[in-house]
């Protein structure tokens, strides 16, 4: 092991040269320690959420005040001994925030864990902040592109929205969040990925992926892994949100992913049970709703500029969205993206269930170009799924129904998208244009995506002005629309798929 060059003598001299404070410190005595929690006698004036420092070097947060003692959850692994002195700090738990956090991987305390050295923070902020009031907020009316066609077309997300990503395990929840982060490159959106109770291997893979795709240039990863103290997992999303608020207050748009809040609520349940609070439904304490509502209410768009868009993730068991935590989160958020195991196993990826997914902000957060192309898409997909169920009985179908089935199948095919590949809103509107104007109807289903992507390339390379106009105006007006019809006809004649494509 290489010893670091530290001049202990000068450090000690420096410490001794300090003038002692004239203030008496308020202290308490540890009377019981165990399971990451300790009971302290004394600290009569301690307040809920206050940071407490122990003589042995550990720190903790006051989580319960009793008649003659306080219960403190410990932040670090440093052992705390019985009869150890615990000191009040007089302030609640704060984390360092600043521009230098971008590109770094930190823990729930704001300390770097990427081995790239110390982070110089601009300021310290309390992890529990005052939620912006109604006067300070502005309506969600600006699109936050995810680059995922199925989401931007069916469940558009706006800046300042809270959109829940919900699904069974291994249905691509994190992939959607990661693709959305990757798509924010060059869009002046600061991304924060908060990993709660994740496996280290998964987290390491994700960090490598973000790095390889250049996403760490605008992303902060905050991780409270599964092996960390339960308190760290509990405070991680609040810490992430605090960092987001710093950037929001500077006028930036922020995208924050909480992956996932199931683990967060489990951590909170563990803490509550250790504090001997009464367990309620699914053994969660009574205030578990408030746990997430006060977190997600911090997202939003401010009238003075800046926004926080939250993408909380929640895992469910056997497609049961009626479990306690998912229903809570559904009611708190402005919509949900429901990922279907059945669709996932059928190769529909992203496996978004169009019927159960919803965005309560809806068209207000969609660019005009995409809005124009997707007016009837959700209805068509619903009709398709209904007909598909009916057709499974072997019923003979009329021509209209057969056409609807064929069209629905192509729509599903078009909405399939490889992982880590995202589309701009212009590309998306061009693809949806093909579907809307029935240009895909004559193509074989397996060539649907190929036709659409090659059409987009064709427009971009042969008609760059048209592509640029749509990008600038965010709209497809009537003359442009007419021109696009001509271009699509022209491309239809040129398109020749080969078997090995």
């Amino acid at each position, binding site marked *: 092991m290489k010893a*670091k060059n*530290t001049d*202990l003598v000068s*450090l*000690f001299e420096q*410490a*001794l040269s300090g003038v*002692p404070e*004239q*203030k*008496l*410190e*308020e*202290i*308490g*005595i540890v009377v019981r320690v165990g399971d990451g929690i300790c009971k302290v006698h*004394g*600290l*009569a004036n301690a307040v809920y959420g206050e940071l407490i420092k122990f*003589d042995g*070097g550990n720190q903790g947060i006051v989580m319960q005040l009793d008649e*003659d003692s306080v219960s403190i959850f410990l932040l670090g692994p440093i052992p705390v001994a019985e009869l150890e*002195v615990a*000191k009040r700090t007089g302030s609640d738990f704060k984390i360092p925030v600043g521009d230098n956090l971008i590109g770094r991987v930190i823990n729930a305390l704001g300390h770097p864990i990427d081995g790239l050295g110390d982070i110089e923070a601009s300021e310290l902020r309390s992890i529990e902040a005052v939620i912006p009031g109604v006067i300070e907020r502005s309506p969600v009316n600006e699109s936050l592109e995810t680059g995922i066609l199925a989401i931007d077309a069916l469940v558009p997300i706006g800046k300042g929205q809270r959109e829940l990503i919900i699904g069974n395990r291994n249905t691509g929840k994190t992939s959607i969040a990661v693709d959305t982060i990757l798509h924010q490159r060059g869009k002046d959106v600061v991304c924060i990925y908060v990993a709660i109770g994740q496996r280290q291997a998964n987290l390491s893979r994700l960090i490598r992926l973000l790095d390889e795709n250049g996403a760490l240039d605008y992303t902060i990863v905050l991780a409270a892994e599964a092996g960390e103290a339960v308190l760290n997992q509990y405070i991680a999303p609040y810490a992430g949100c605090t960092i987001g608020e710093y950037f929001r207050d500077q006028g930036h748009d922020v995208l924050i992913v909480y992956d996932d809040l199931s683990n967060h609520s489990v951590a909170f349940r563990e803490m509550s049970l250790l504090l001997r609070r009464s367990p309620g439904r699914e053994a969660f304490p009574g205030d578990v709703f408030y746990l997430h509502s006060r977190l997600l209410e911090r997202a939003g768009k401010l009238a003075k500029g800046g926004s926080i868009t939250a993408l909380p993730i929640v895992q469910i068991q056997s497609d049961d969205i009626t479990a306690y935590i998912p229903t809570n989160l559904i009611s708190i958020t402005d919509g949900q993206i429901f990922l279907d195991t059945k669709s996932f196993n059928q190769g529909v990826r992203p496996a978004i269930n169009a019927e159960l997914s919803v965005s309560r902000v809806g068209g207000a957060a969609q660019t005009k170009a995409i809005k124009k192309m997707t007016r009837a898409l959700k209805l068509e997909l619903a009709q398709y799924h209904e007909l598909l169920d009916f057709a499974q009985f072997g019923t003979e179908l009329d021509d209209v129904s057969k056409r609807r089935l064929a069209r629905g199948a192509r729509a599903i095919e078009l909405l399939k998208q490889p992982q880590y590949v995202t589309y701009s809103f212009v590309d998306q509107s061009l693809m949806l244009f093909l579907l809307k104007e029935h240009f895909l109807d004559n193509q074989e289903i397996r060539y649907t995506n190929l036709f659409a992507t090659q059409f987009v390339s064709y427009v971009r390379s042969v008609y760059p002005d048209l592509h640029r106009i749509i990008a600038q105006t965010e709209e497809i007006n009537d003359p442009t629309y007419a021109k696009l019809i001509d271009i699509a006809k022209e491309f239809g004649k040129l398109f020749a798929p080969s078997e090995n494509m």
Partner: protein
Amino acid sequence: MSISLQAELCEKYAQAYLNILGDSLTLSDAENFLRAYQFLHAHHKITFFLKLSALDDQVKTKQLKLLCEKFELPESVDAIVQLLLAQKRASLFEHVLYRISTLFKERAGIHDFVIQSAVALSEQEKGQIEKFLARKTGQDNIYTYHVDTRLIAGVRLRSQTLLWEHSIAQQLRQLELSLVAKGN
């Protein structure tokens, strides 16, 4: 009886005593309570005898009254002695005395300061420290002095709820923590 239940019961007896008869108590009474507790704590046999059910209550009363006289405890203590005997909890007497003393001081805001120093302090130094603590707490407190060479140099002033320390040992401890935090 579990330790926590015992502590809870003692707390309740002490609270009840102070609620009814606390107004007549003085700081010197509280100190006498503490001395009596220290004596009982050092002589476990007395508490053991109080636990014996075979021993007559009159003998126990006589023994406890003698103790009260010896340590000049107020007459009002007789009420709590009778109550403990009637409820077969005479063995709690020792801890009830301690809680009465500490609770009285807590309620009166009086701190029991233990002043540790690396070398014995002069009377002038003691006066300075007592003046400093009286100014900070807003009243006179109880001071006990100890020499603790582990401080290396400096002083440590500590009560149940307050602490002030300026010593070499403290500086070294802080230096160690900051170096560990930085990973040195």
